[in-house]
């Protein structure tokens, strides 16, 4: 179930082969995605984390379909975005972010089911891990990371840090169920947003689609880098910016789910991110 009062962070320590689900009430103002990812970098700066982070709408609303990957590349904090089914699986694994620390002494595959993490050897592979239909798998193929055998990220930041950390694959399975309190209102809003697909800056395509997005566009494969701070904190698709930069829509979504963010929280987000980046730079 969503925790409206705190951000849930699954920390994974590759050195110790330990994992822990932590709840941070004081991180709620970071909303999600890039904002949460950068703050976790500040908190765990000594441990060189790679952070996967979603936003409050992922899993619940159409076009909120990306996952932010925040990492340190040679002293520069980079934020990149990957599509596919990952954000939906993370939502129903019950985590807002996964922060992976340290380096494994052996090539490792992480098998994550909700908050439970198994550290497996490379020989395991990812094909047999996770629950069919409820899992996302991240793999190396020809030195490129593929999510769900198809989706990638821009540049090679993720490949580089996974190699440094000796991570050969990650499988994430989500089995939690949520029931928004005002379900009828949620359903109505869901369908209203879905009907706005003509407002997207991509055309309907013939390619694999991100979960909760009907478009199957040609852009989803390569992921995203940079862009609007609110979109990147909600971790919606940049091509749905017309929808998710509409503050009225964003608040309707947040309120329907039960979050109590204020306009000030949203307005202060760019400043909060900027200040956090300044402190860790």
């Amino acid at each position, binding site marked *: 179930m969503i925790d409206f009062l705190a951000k849930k962070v699954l920390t994974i320590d590759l050195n110790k082969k330990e994992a822990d689900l932590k709840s941070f009430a004081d991180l709620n103002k970071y909303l999600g995605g890039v904002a949460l990812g950068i703050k976790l970098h500040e908190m765990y700066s000594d441990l060189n984390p790679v952070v996967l982070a979603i936003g409050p709408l992922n*899993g*619940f609303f*159409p076009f909120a379909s990306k996952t932010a990957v925040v990492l340190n590349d040679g002293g520069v904090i980079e934020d990149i975005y990957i599509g596919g*089914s990952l954000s*939906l*699986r993370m939502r*129903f694994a019950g985590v807002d972010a996964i922060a992976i620390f340290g380096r494994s002494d052996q090539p490792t595959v992480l098998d994550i089911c909700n908050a439970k993490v198994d550290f497996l050897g490379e020989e395991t592979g990812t094909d047999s891990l996770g629950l*069919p*239909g*409820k899992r996302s798998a991240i793999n190396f*193929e020809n030195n490129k990371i593929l999510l*769900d*055998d*198809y989706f990638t990220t821009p540049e090679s930041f993720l490949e580089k840090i996974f190699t440094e950390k000796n991570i050969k694959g990650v499988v994430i399975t*989500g*089995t*939690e*169920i*949520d*029931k*928004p309190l005002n*379900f009828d209102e*949620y*359903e109505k809003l*869901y369908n209203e947003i*879905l009907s706005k697909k003509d407002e997207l800056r991509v055309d*309907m395509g*013939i*390619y*694999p*689609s*991100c*979960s*909760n*997005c*009907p*478009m*199957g566009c040609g852009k989803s494969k390569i992921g995203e880098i940079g862009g609007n701070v609110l979109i990147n904190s909600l971790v919606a698709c940049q091509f749905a910016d017309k929808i998710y930069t509409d503050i009225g829509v964003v608040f309707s979504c947040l309120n329907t789910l039960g979050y109590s963010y204020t306009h000030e929280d949203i307005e202060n987000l760019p400043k909060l991110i900027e200040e956090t980046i300044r402190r860790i730079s």
Partner: protein
Amino acid sequence: MAKILKPTQTDKCNGCELCLLESQRQLKKVGLEEALIRIFKKKRDDNQKLEMQIEIDPRINMLHVEKISKICPKDVFEVENHEEIEGKNEE
């Protein structure tokens, strides 16, 4: 008259899972657990697309299957009513 949901054009499925999520919403829940539709994604040799497999629990037909069919952006499903199926069998 019983309505039956059938995936007749699975090759067109783009894996968006809108059908799965719609069926879950009809059961007043959001998530993947105990979903009556499951989408399995399989790699194709050309790496340009994925091959989708759709598994449907027959209990889906107790839901509003036309709504599930309609939400699919690729028209993967057809809704047949029970009488039509019986008619086809007789032919």
